[in-house]
């Protein structure tokens, strides 16, 4: 292969970088270590045979096996063998490198080897676990996997991670309870934090709730002080009515561009900057009174009107009005009413600001599933069928009815109310969501309690599949609601029909405990609708390079070992954007994410995996094809010795290798995934086996 001739004339700083500068390649001496993983691997693969086979491979100097390679004695085997057998390559055949590559790299390093001379053969996730009943097939596959790994290990080179400084600032996207908690924690840890929220106010879903289970704390009472803290925190720069527009860079150095949507209103600070003394919005609401445009308030689930210039509710943070330019008719009455404060600017345009942050937390939250898709329950067809979030607003003292629960059809107080749990959750029909939404059982119990408490003689009927009251003091709360007189019917509701005259609802279900059909007439139906990721989560996650599960929930790096991290270094998850969580779990996850996001910042520098592209200038023809292929603008053509060659900015290169896959002359050298290494793996598989 031409790459072997690679020679580079340019001087390199501290560490030798690539093939060019390595000493004449020593003869490969690879050690192979095979893990039993208890019976996880040994149960399906013949370890003895695999070890014998490994010993027979030309570049293998030593082979061993152990019950649990990741344990201290297992790792010591690697450390000792490197020294004893003068190994220059290590292969561990065990689980996936996505789990233990870092473990064994550290062990190799401790043995005195460059950690990048380690290669893993995955014989568990991609072998013993998927061929559990084919010992012969699994053992053959393991032999091939070891042979392929040894072929790569024999060609591995010393590589040196690049240290880059970390910007001492963080970003949190989404200012619900998760984002607020994460931002407060970061700010309290002394980190400048940009908190970006698409709505005009922070607070998120929690601010729409009336009470919280199982303590029955008033949601606003515990949330509002936190909102105020966020608004006042010195280290938090609040960016409400703003969205992430673009993300560039990498851990330690993200450049995030934020679109600050035109809100048509100046804050006092903005007014002062414009030379309007004592001006800017003080939240007086004079504009609101004169505005002639009326729209439904989404915060109140559309059950209360707002104007074209509005605040969503009295506790908003920041207390600044917002002009909804989609509906504003620009009559100018508000400008007049505002007077000398000169806070309103109806010609305001969106602004873009770019900030540099070291790490970022996504906390984009959830939406309610479009429950009208389950048309058997009649949402949006029958007036007295509402969702639980609408129920929250109706029962809330600050809501559209001042906390009096009324039927939307006639304003009467309902006496018999049916709650349909798992409305769209745990649904395998393809219409709803297959997962459990996790907090609907508990808030429905809370709703039952609120009805009994507020409406004398009222009876809640809860139609459930299973009551999942798994948290601290949750089961006790369930007993309490049972004792208070709520009725529980174990059965999924098949159909809801409306009496066209009374607007009462007939709920039809099977009572599976009594094994008999039920037909219950109620005044109101409340659907405990499934939750789903917000619409905005998808574009945001794509900008930050975060994957999602099939349901759209953002994907953590590892569900157990790295639940707050993502596969993009420096980007973390908090709250329900990752999957349904109740408030305590959300806050815990937010604190976890904040802690994780603060680590690189406090450390001050991070190491980037040295999978950088390198240009072999003597071969490079300077065509520049690679320059346009690079999604990170890491490559450029530069003039050297009278001709054009490609140059890599290592800090920008993320090591995807897209340039290397395309270079027509083979001039790009992808460290750790070089052409000779990959070809050696292919050859080892197809040509290296016993004939």
């Amino acid at each position, binding site marked *: 292969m031409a790459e072997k001739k690679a020679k580079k004339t340019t001087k390199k700083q501290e560490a030798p970088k690539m093939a060019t500068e390595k000493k004449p390649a020593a003869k490969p001496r690879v050690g192979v270590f095979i893990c039993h993983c208890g019976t996880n691997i040994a149960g399906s693969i013949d370890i003895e045979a695999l070890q014998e086979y490994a010993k027979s491979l030309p570049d293998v100097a030593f082979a061993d096996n152990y019950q649990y390679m990741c344990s201290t004695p297992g790792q010591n085997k690697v450390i000792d063998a490197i020294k004893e057998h003068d190994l220059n390559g290590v292969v561990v055949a065990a689980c996936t490198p996505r789990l233990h590559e870092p473990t064994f790299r550290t062990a190799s390093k401790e043995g005195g080897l460059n950690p990048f001379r380690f290669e893993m053969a995955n014989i568990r996730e991609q072998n013993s676990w998927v061929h559990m009943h084919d010992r012969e097939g699994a053992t053959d596959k393991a032999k091939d996997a070891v042979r392929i790994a040894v072929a790569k290990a024999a060609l591995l080179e010393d590589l040196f991670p690049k240290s880059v400084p970390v910007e001492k600032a963080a970003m949190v996207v989404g200012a619900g309870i998760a984002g607020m908690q994460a931002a407060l924690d970061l700010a309290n840890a002394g980190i400048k934090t940009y908190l970006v929220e698409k709505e005009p106010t922070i607070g998120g879903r929690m601010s729409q709730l009336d009470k919280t289970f199982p303590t029955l704390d008033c949601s606003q009472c515990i949330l509002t002080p936190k909102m105020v803290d966020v608004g006042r925190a010195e280290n938090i720069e609040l960016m409400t009515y703003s969205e992430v527009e673009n993300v560039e860079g990498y851990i330690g150095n993200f450049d995030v561009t934020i679109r600050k949507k035109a809100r048509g209103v100046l804050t006092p600070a903005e007014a002062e900057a414009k030379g309007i003394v004592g001006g800017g919005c003080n939240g007086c609401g004079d504009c609101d009174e004169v505005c002639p445009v009326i729209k439904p308030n989404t915060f109140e689930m559309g059950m209360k009107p707002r104007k074209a210039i509005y605040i969503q509710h009295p506790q908003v943070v920041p207390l600044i009005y917002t002009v909804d330019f989609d509906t504003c008719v620009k009559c100018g009455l508000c400008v007049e009413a505002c007077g000398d404060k000169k806070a309103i600017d109806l010609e305001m345009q969106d602004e873009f600001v770019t900030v540099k942050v070291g790490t970022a937390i996504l906390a984009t939250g959830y939406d309610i599933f479009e429950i009208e898709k389950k048309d058997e329950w009649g949402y949006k067809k029958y007036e007295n069928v509402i969702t639980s979030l609408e129920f929250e607003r109706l029962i809330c003292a600050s809501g559209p009815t001042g906390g009096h629960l009324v039927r939307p059809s006639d304003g009467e107080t309902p006496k018999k109310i049916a709650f349909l749990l798992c409305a769209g959750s745990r649904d395998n029909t393809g219409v709803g969501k297959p997962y459990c939404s996790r907090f609907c059982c508990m808030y429905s119990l809370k709703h039952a309690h609120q009805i009994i408490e507020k409406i004398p003689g009222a009876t809640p009927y809860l139609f459930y599949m299973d009551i999942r009251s798994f948290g601290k003091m949750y089961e006790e709360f369930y007993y309490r609601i049972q004792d208070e007189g709520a009725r529980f019917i174990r059965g999924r509701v098949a159909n809801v029909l409306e009496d066209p005259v009374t607007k009462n609802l007939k709920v039809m279900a099977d009572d599976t405990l009594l094994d008999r059909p039920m037909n219950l007439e109620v005044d109101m139906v409340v659907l405990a609708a499934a939750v789903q990721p917000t619409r905005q989560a998808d574009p945001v996650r794509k900008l930050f390079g975060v*994957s999602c599960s099939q349901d759209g929930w953002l994907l953590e790096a590892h569900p157990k070992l790295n639940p707050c991290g993502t596969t993009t270094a420096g980007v973390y998850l908090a709250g329900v954007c990752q999957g349904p969580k109740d408030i305590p779990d959300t806050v815990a996850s937010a604190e976890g994410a904040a802690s994780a996001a603060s680590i690189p910042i406090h450390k001050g520098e991070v190491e980037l995996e040295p999978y950088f592209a390198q240009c072999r200038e003597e071969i490079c023809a300077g065509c520049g094809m690679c320059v346009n292929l690079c999604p990170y603008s890491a490559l450029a053509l530069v003039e050297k010795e009278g001709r054009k060659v490609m140059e890599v900015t290592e800090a920008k290169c993320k090591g995807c290798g897209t340039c290397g*896959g395309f270079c027509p002359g083979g001039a790009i050298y*992808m460290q750790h995934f070089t052409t000779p290494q990959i070809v050696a793996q292919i050859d080892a598989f197809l040509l290296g086996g016993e004939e």
Partner: protein
Amino acid sequence: MADEWEPKILGLVCNWCSYAGADLAGSARTQYPPDIRIVRVMCTGRLDPLFILKAFTDGADGVLVSGCHFGDCHYLEGNYKAAKRMFMLKSLLKNIGLEDKRMRMTFVSASEGAKWATVVQDVINTVKTLGPNPLKELQS
């Protein structure tokens, strides 16, 4: 029959989506036949079409290239670029008289363990229908 022909299939998969998806199939103990060997790259964008040609001249009966879904690439667009190259490679294979179905590009995300198992099973079935790589006969 005891010595039924088992095809040799090379899987070239990206680290972030398909390799993780294959791991997930393992964690979920989803069973599929052991006829595939995996070589991991960081991104399918790394794949030089020559690697696949090399595999075929080495005697691979099938090659599966698997990356992230479009729009989901860890490196933004490496999978688009790979897909383009694989599309051209397929037409080349057809033109030189090698069944282009021996080569397949799929998109399996980190959360699609079951899909990975189905894809592998599918590729094995297809390759088994096609029979051994004809290049092997030429070489012997």
